[in-house]
Structure formats: structure tokens, C-alpha cells
């Protein structure tokens, strides 16, 4: 029997919590959600969220959701776009700060 080797593509779905802040809540249409996803990195997860939203809302432009100015956070810690997501992670996406 060959050992089971999983690629990101055929990894099973994991359950994650997604939180949005500032304008991203309006743009993606939710604040907080628990979802099943096969995404293994914040980059993949973001791509998935944006793709779903663009399909529903033809008026929205992909440029408004470009990841350049957005920072991913995993479990209250700033993360990199290619960090690994694991079951139960709380993933947040933050637009540029506008405090002060």
C-alpha cells in the first residue's frame, strides 16, 4: 500500500473562522463567518472569498479587493499570505489603518 500523500488541492476541507474589518465588511458583505474551505493559506482563502463575491456582485471590481494593501491575521497574530492554515484557525483580513 502506498502512503497517502496529499497536495493542497486534494486536502480535505477544514473549518475556519473568517473575520473582516473596516471597508472589507462592506465590500465582501459579511463581518464574521465560519466556513468549510480547502484553502491552505490566507492567500488561497482570500482568493476564494473574492471570487465568490465578484460572482454575486458584478458591480464590484477585483482591484478594490487587491491583496496589496490588506494584511492577513491568524489567531490574533500578523501572518504572511503563504502561512499554513490549520483546522479551527481564526483568520482575519485587515484593510489599511485609519486611526488617529
Amino acid at each position, binding site marked *: 500500500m502506498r502512503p497517502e500523500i496529499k497536495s493542497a488541492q486534494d486536502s480535505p476541507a477544514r473549518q475556519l473562522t473568517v473575520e473582516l*474589518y*473596516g*471597508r472589507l465588511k*462592506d465590500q465582501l458583505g459579511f463581518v464574521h463567518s465560519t466556513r468549510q474551505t480547502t484553502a491552505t493559506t490566507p492567500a488561497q482563502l482570500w482568493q476564494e472569498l473574492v471570487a465568490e463575491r465578484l460572482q454575486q456582485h458584478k458591480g464590484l471590481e477585483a482591484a478594490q479587493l487587491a491583496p496589496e494593501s490588506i494584511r492577513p*491575521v491568524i489567531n*490574533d*497574530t*500578523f501572518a504572511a499570505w503563504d502561512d499554513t492554515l490549520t483546522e479551527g484557525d481564526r483568520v*482575519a483580513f*485587515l*484593510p*489599511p*489603518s*485609519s*486611526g*488617529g
Partner: protein
Amino acid sequence: MFALSQQPINAQSLRQQCQDPQAGGFVCFEGWVRDHNQGKSVTRLAYEAYPALAKSEGERILAEARQRFDIVQAVCVHRVGMLDIGDMAVWVGVSAAHRDAAFKACRYILDEVKSRVPIWKNESWTDGESGWVEQE
């Protein structure tokens, strides 16, 4: 000390945290809610934060300021929730032996807090609309 506050900011008590017999200069900045911004007439605004990260990033900025400048105390509090015109949104206070360090550190903390601490401003305008505002 960096903190978020749901309540109106008490500048007097924060100022006292900066007092020290070695300090000869004290600089503070207060950010107030203006009645206009980027050409729009503002009626009120709301600040939302990511509290856990705001606190850690704010403390990191204060530690950087203490490393870069010869200061005695540095304190910053940012308001969250609903604010009216004239309300204080942010307070930064720095005491130092000499004025130059106090001015530079206060400015550094303010600029870094505005750009790095995860807090977002939502303005309500006189036309009844509201929206998230990006940095000027």
C-alpha cells in the same frame, strides 16, 4: 502604556502618568473629531479596532519611541466606538528631560499609530450617508 478606550479619554489623568521630576518637557497631541473631512461635512464618526493586535502594536510603537528618543514616559490612548464632533479620538503624551526628544517622540508615536495600529474610521455625513475612510 497603550490602551483603547470605549469611554471619553481623560487627558488630565494621562498627563499625570507622564509626570516625573527628571522631566523638563512634556508634549502632547490630541486628535479631535472635525466637522469636515476630505470635503465632506461630518456629523459623527465611529472607530472600530482589532483590540488584541491594536494593543500589542501600540505597545511596540511606544517601545520603539523609548529606544529611539531620550524620553522619560510615553502614553497613548485611542478611543473606539461612536464619537461626536469635538470628541477626542486619540491622545499621545511624552515627557523628556529636553524638549527636542519630547516633540520628536510624540510625533513619531502619532504617525506610527495612525499608520500601523489596526483601527478604522467610519464617518457619518450630513447627507445621511456614511462610509469607511482611508488615510489621507
